[in-house]
């Protein structure tokens, strides 16, 4: 039986901070966006105060000053490293781990009987927490859409204790589907919910029972797939998910094993450029860039080194120049001589729609003229590349040390990636 698990880190950014600052445990904590603009991650305690994602940080200053809540600048370097650790632990449990975003990963579980699968998932749940300090929830099901629902149940229903397994056609699955509103199903947006309600389709169960052909005819293939997945028929692959706007990834093997920094830099720039194009095509903005390198894991005779690093962008952007600059900096930091790299990639993270740009007005002031100039330039570049072939227009090297200053007054230490920012342990 082929099953897929979704492992989702609980309040990931806040959890990363808590590993090294235990005093933040059990109290309301929020993490702010670039330049301390607004709150982008909240602990449960902060949510309980009625504070929402996207709240401008300045409106919370009275609560911060009186010590009732803690707000931190985002520390992407730390989050990126912790995310990699979580992934590494998961890889001990399954040969196939697919990161979906910085805090969500799909894990394949094939060939387990019922009882051992539950035991396996519990072990995984426990080990990630113990090894990395990050609490997670695990949802396992025959399809990704159901795994997502299972994960949600694992998070919301205390009886599951963080692990929920849904088998196709079981009473438990049916029960949960009947209780799940359509809006909480992965990939079903608000407008779809309204249109489906007109057909009498209100719960996830209704959608699973609907005639797939009918759904396809009246809506789309995508929704038909969602309906199929709810019945336990897998039809969404990882590649489809990249489209879901959570992340954009361009990754390829170098074609040969190489340790030549120039070659790798060139490849990284290409991947970055490609990712930026995809980002602009879906009219999005990225807040952070992840760069990774991998040596060949099947050549155990060679030294292995598979680093990755996340850098945050000074502001949400789709400008290739800014993205490539960040990618270049990240590469310089992770590249080590003496290893033969097989593969590399550039992932754009924390995507938002360009129409949500107003959020970033709180971040970094960028004049309208500047933004329009950037957009125009990118448009011209994309058009030329589309018409005359890829890489007709490429970007040169950016000037090193260009404006790269961020406000991050409340950033915690980069405890796992900088020698001079290691956590202190008291011998008292």
């Amino acid at each position: 039986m082929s099953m897929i698990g979704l492992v989702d880190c609980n309040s990931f950014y806040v959890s990363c901070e808590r590993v090294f600052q235990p005093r933040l445990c059990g109290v309301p904590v929020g993490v702010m966006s670039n330049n301390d603009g607004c709150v982008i991650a909240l602990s449960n305690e902060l949510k309980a105060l009625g504070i929402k994602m996207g709240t401008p940080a300045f409106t919370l200053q009275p609560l911060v000053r009186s010590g009732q809540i803690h707000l931190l600048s985002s520390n992407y370097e730390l989050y990126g490293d912790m995310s990699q650790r979580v992934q590494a632990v998961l890889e001990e449990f399954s040969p196939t781990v697919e990161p979906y975003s910085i805090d969500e990963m799909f894990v394949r579980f094939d060939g387990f009987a019922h009882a051992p699968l539950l035991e396996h998932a519990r072990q995984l749940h426990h080990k990630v927490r113990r090894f990395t300090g990050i609490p997670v929830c695990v949802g396992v099901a025959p399809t990704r859409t159901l795994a997502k629902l299972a994960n949600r149940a694992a998070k919301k229903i205390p009886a599951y204790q963080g692990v929920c397994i849904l088998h196709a056609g079981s009473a438990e699955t049916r029960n949960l589907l009947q209780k799940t509103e359509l809006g909480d199903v992965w990939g079903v947006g608000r407008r779809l919910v309204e249109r489906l309600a007109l057909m009498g389709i209100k719960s996830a169960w209704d959608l699973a029972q609907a005639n797939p052909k009918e759904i396809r005819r009246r809506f789309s293939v995508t929704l038909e797939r969602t309906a199929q997945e709810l019945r336990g028929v897998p039809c969404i692959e990882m590649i489809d998910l990249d489209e879901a706007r959570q992340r954009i990834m361009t990754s390829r093997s170098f074609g040969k094993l190489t340790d030549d920094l120039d070659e790798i830099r060139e490849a990284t720039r290409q991947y970055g450029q490609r990712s930026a194009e995809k980002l602009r095509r879906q009219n999005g903005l990225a807040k952070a860039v992840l760069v990774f390198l991998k040596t060949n894991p099947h050549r155990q005779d060679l030294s292995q080194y598979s680093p990755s690093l996340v850098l945050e962008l000074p502001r949400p952007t789709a400008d290739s120049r800014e993205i490539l600059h960040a990618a270049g900096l990240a590469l310089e930091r992770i590249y080590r001589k003496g290893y033969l790299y097989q593969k590399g990639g550039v992932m754009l993270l924390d995507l938002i729609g360009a129409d949500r740009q107003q959020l970033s007005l709180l971040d970094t002031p960028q004049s309208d003229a500047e933004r329009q100039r950037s957009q125009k330039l990118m448009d011209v570049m994309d058009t030329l590349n589309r018409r005359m072939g890829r890489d007709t227009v490429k970007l040169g090297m950016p000037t090193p040390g260009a404006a790269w200053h961020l406000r991050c007054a409340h950033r915690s230490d980069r405890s796992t990636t900088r020698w001079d920012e290691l956590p202190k342990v008291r011998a008292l």
Partner: protein
Amino acid sequence: MTLVNLIPAHPEPPPLALPHPLALGRAGLSGFPSPAQDYEGRTLDLNERLVKRPSATFFMSVTGDSMERLGIHEGDLLLVDRSLEPRPGHILVALIDGEITVKRYELRGKVPCLCSGNPRYAPIPLVDIECQVWGVVRSVIHEYPV
């Protein structure tokens, strides 16, 4: 003028990073391949020796002197492994009153305690305090001033 300010006429060659690669190529001009060639690229890697489980290993730096008698000094680097099950005799990183603290895990009689290397600090019996193990210290790196 002190010695430090003197500029040497012939700057020393930059020191080779240790450990040296075992072989740098062919032996002389004879055309025979060096017998060491098969071992090229193999160097001693401290990570391999000290970091048994990278995903669960964290580095921390020590403040305070209570563990000196146990060989842990101010400024030392601790390699902490969260994957290990703590046993008596282990040096632990533990959360005591919300602070990250290093202690030795001991059994006093039958009572598990967190002890320091300094008699000034009384052992803390684990029965009546809020304490959480953060990780087990696998090694200590002490760098001498040189």
